[in-house]
């Protein structure tokens, strides 16, 4: 017995909903598989509603709006059209298929059309089959905190050694622009018995987890790790309110835990690329294919990164193993306190890695790098893979003289140390060695570099707000002040966060927030022809 498809419908108040109402009043029959949510405009439907609907088990999502040109809010439905096109791409990647999302223009007088759409959609969904992901809904459940858990977190991260010197706040990029935020005061409250206030407040979500404070703390208080432990025990509502881009990336990551997931994420692979299902070295791509769609408007050409990596690897004679159903490394989950789902993802990934017989993992994303190299071993107990960041691999090749450039470039670049690669993992020199080995490339440094580098301003999509904006602008200003033509970094997220400044409203003048950016792998691949 096949279960009946469940359709969630977002219908705009003025047209589609009225149309549905008309169908009812006119007694036009249609299948009962539909659950209606009335929105004021189809343009209100955020892609995350669609994703979450599927995460929670819907088989299909219908979005109904006014006909173009008749939108009650003039252009809302055009917004919907853009968004739903974008969302379909996500659905294709995640393996659900774009056919499960339907966008229809239904006017208030088109009761018949409404009924017809629902009937057809239901029938199509019966043919496509049920949403296999509904078997397992992996939403984060907050852990009710106990004094023991807080006390364990305090001991594990050295919080009790705090001297209250304030060096952390004096270093924190957020504290400089938002002086009500102070890592020291968060620690103080935790030690003085105000844990509830700490856990239910927004401060623990404001932390960028950039490790600048703990790098400098004389008492080795690992504040970001303490914050991470607190996030586990914090109420979900605060986090969901503060999460930027409405938590789409994380919703997609959670879906990947599902055993039935079958993604379609290798479309970016160029013709002639040599990869394999098995191999000694596995290239872990990360969520770039999804981020490329979510941040389509930024024109960052993020897919150039994995393309460049594969090209470079092939050129130096490596045929990397790749996972066609690769799961998210789980970084954002870990850092927003969802340890349970993180563990599930990690176990799945490790099982997949083992199937490829790989002994080495290489990645171009610092977050994946840190997570695979450090957190997997810590959380899972054992992890027998050697993890390299692409810059480390390339640096080794430079040392051996095996990295050959055909032409080189003629440009001055400034290198930004991403937090996860730099302070978290101590990888400062390999990217620089690679950059300086490219003929014609001059490397400039910002005053705040290496362990003093300033975070790009956002972490795990949390707390993207006006303070984060200032931090990001400050860093871009610093990069531009070096006189470099290009800002080179090894983290796709940093690029996204900086580019996001260009979509601020009211718009900031472009010279202040734009600088040409390049990922290290893309730079190297360009110079290799």
């Amino acid at each position: 017995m096949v279960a009946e498809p469940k359709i969630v419908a977002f219908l705009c108040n003025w047209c589609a909903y009225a149309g549905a109402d008309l169908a009812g009043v006119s007694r036009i029959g249609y299948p009962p598989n539909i659950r209606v949510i009335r929105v004021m405009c189809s343009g209100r439907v955020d892609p995350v509603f669609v994703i979450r609907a599927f995460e929670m088990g819907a088989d299909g999502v219908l979005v109904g709006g006014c006909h173009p040109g008749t939108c009650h809010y003039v252009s809302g439905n055009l917004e919907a059209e853009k968004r739903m096109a974008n969302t379909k791409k996500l659905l294709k990647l995640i393996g659900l298929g774009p056919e499960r999302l339907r966008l229809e223009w239904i006017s208030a007088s088109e009761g018949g059309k409404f009924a017809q759409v629902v009937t057809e959609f239901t029938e199509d969904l019966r043919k496509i089959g049920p949403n296999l992901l509904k078997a397992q809904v992996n939403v984060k459940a907050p852990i009710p905190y106990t004094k023991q858990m807080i006390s364990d977190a305090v001991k594990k991260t050295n919080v009790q050694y705090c001297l209250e010197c304030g060096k952390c706040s004096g270093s924190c990029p957020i504290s400089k622009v938002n002086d009500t935020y102070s890592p020291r005061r968060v620690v103080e409250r935790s030690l003085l018995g105000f844990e509830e206030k700490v856990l239910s407040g927004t401060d623990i979500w404001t932390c960028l987890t950039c490790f600048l404070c703990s790098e400098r703390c004389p008492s080795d208080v690992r504040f970001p790790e303490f914050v991470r432990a607190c996030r586990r025990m914090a109420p979900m509502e605060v986090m969901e309110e503060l999460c930027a881009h409405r938590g789409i990336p994380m919703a997609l990551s959670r879906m990947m835990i599902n055993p039935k997931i079958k993604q379609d994420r290798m479309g970016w692979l160029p013709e002639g690329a040599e990869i394999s299902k098995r191999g000694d070295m596995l290239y872990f791509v990360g969520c770039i294919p999804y981020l490329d769609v979510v941040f389509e408007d930024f024109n960052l050409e993020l897919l150039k990164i994995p393309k460049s990596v594969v090209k470079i690897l092939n050129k130096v004679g490596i045929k990397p193993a790749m996972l066609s159903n690769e799961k998210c490394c789980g970084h954002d989950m870990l850092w927003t306190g969802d340890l349970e789902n993180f563990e599930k993802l990690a176990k799945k990934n490790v099982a997949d890695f083992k199937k490829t017989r790989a002994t080495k993992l290489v990645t171009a994303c610092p977050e994946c790098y840190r997570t695979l190299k450090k957190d997997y071993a810590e959380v899972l107990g054992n992890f027998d893979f050697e993890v390299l960041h692409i810059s480390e691999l390339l640096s080794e090749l430079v040392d051996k003289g095996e990295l050959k450039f055909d032409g080189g470039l003629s440009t001055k670049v400034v290198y930004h140390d991403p937090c996860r690669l730099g302070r978290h993992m101590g990888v400062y020199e390999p990217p620089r060695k690679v950059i300086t080995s490219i003929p014609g490339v001059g490397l400039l440094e910002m005053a705040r570099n290496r362990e003093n580098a300033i975070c790009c301003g956002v972490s795990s999509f949390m707390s993207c707000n006006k303070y984060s904006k200032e931090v990001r602008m400050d860093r871009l200003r610093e990069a531009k002040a070096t006189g470099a033509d290009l800002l080179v970094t090894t983290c796709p997220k940093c690029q996204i966060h900086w580019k996001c400044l260009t979509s601020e409203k009211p718009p900031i003048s472009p010279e202040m927030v734009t600088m040409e950016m390049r990922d290290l792998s893309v730079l190297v691949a360009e110079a290799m022809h």
Partner: protein
Amino acid sequence: MKANQSVLVIGGGIAGIQASLDLANRGLKVYLVEKTPSIGGRMAQLDKTFPTMDCSICILAPKMIECFRQPNLTILTYSEVQEVSGSAGNFTVKILKKPRFINVEKCTGCGVCAQHCPVEVPNEFDMGIGVRKAIYVPFPQAVPLKYTIDEEHCLKCGLCQRMCQAEAVDLNQKPEVAHLNVDAIIVATGFELFDAQRRSEYGYGKYKNVLISLEFERLLSASGPTGGHLLRLSDGRIPKRIAFIQCVGSRSLKGGVSFCSSACCMYATKEAILIREHIPECEVYIFYNELKVFGKGYQDFVTGAQTHWGVKYIRALPGEVVQDSKTGDLTLWYEDTIENVTRSIEVDVVVLCPALIPRAANKEVGVILGLELDEHGFFKPKDPLFAPVDTNVLGVFICGYCQSPKDIPESVAEASAAAARAAEVIALSASKEVH
């Protein structure tokens, strides 16, 4: 009575000098070994001393001269202890006298050689700020007032030799080895400074106007590279606002040492008062964690700095120092932990107070003498409470900073204690009972 009755003192700073004088003045023979060309140590580098605000060299030089004039005291500068064998009452010591390339019998200290020497190198006494010649005395009040040629930088041009009227220059001088027989040994090797470049957030080594305290002390001193005029090193301007940052590399569980150097809160206050004396319009801020000022009169000293001299104390350790590359002006970021607000402040000069750490060379001394060191490199006393100047080796005593962090009064007291213990060895070995 045994023929010996002598003590070897290793280290010619105030502790070594005090111990030597105590022993020599009571009729015992003392060999004071110092590896730099002059005795005096750190105290000679200071401008004033806390809490009395005495001119440091003015009170130190008389003691140095006393060492020189004491017939029982033999000063062996530019020398190092190489081997020690034997036991209490009968130590055999091998000392290497490094070649000064100057005949000290003939040198009158007139300085004509240095006037003509073509080589200029950074002056260690001035912490690298000023320059000296390859032929030099480390500071004007050096004891002995004899020139030394720095072999590493000397061009062997012979100009000094030609100009020296006393014919004291001997470019072929060889190192000498001296063998001594002593009853007891006192170690007083003092301290060096934590490398403040390790705290890269403060920009020391990158920003010209970020100095460490001992460098600043030289700027304040009349015998220093600026003649005691307080000027910014980057552009020679008179500073209008100076900030001190305490605890750089100290009291740290990582990126530094875990102990407190005990003297910095006081000497920062002292330097702050001196700034206010030099330049009354200059604002002075001291960024601190705690004010460790527990000696006699010390709290009053700090209170006086706050109330009478207007030194501003802010309870915060700054997160970082940022430089305006065009002007050299510095911005400090900190969280005022009393007002609970994160702020920045623009200053002209930043003075870092780095941890005072036992010398790395203590390890070697430890090996030569068989002494135990603790995890920080201090020599371990036999018992920290009841035998603080004794060590695990009978007849070898320690005093001053190399034993534990302390200030000048404490170093002098401990030096006298070590001298008394050493004299005891001599007295007992005379009656053949050594405890």
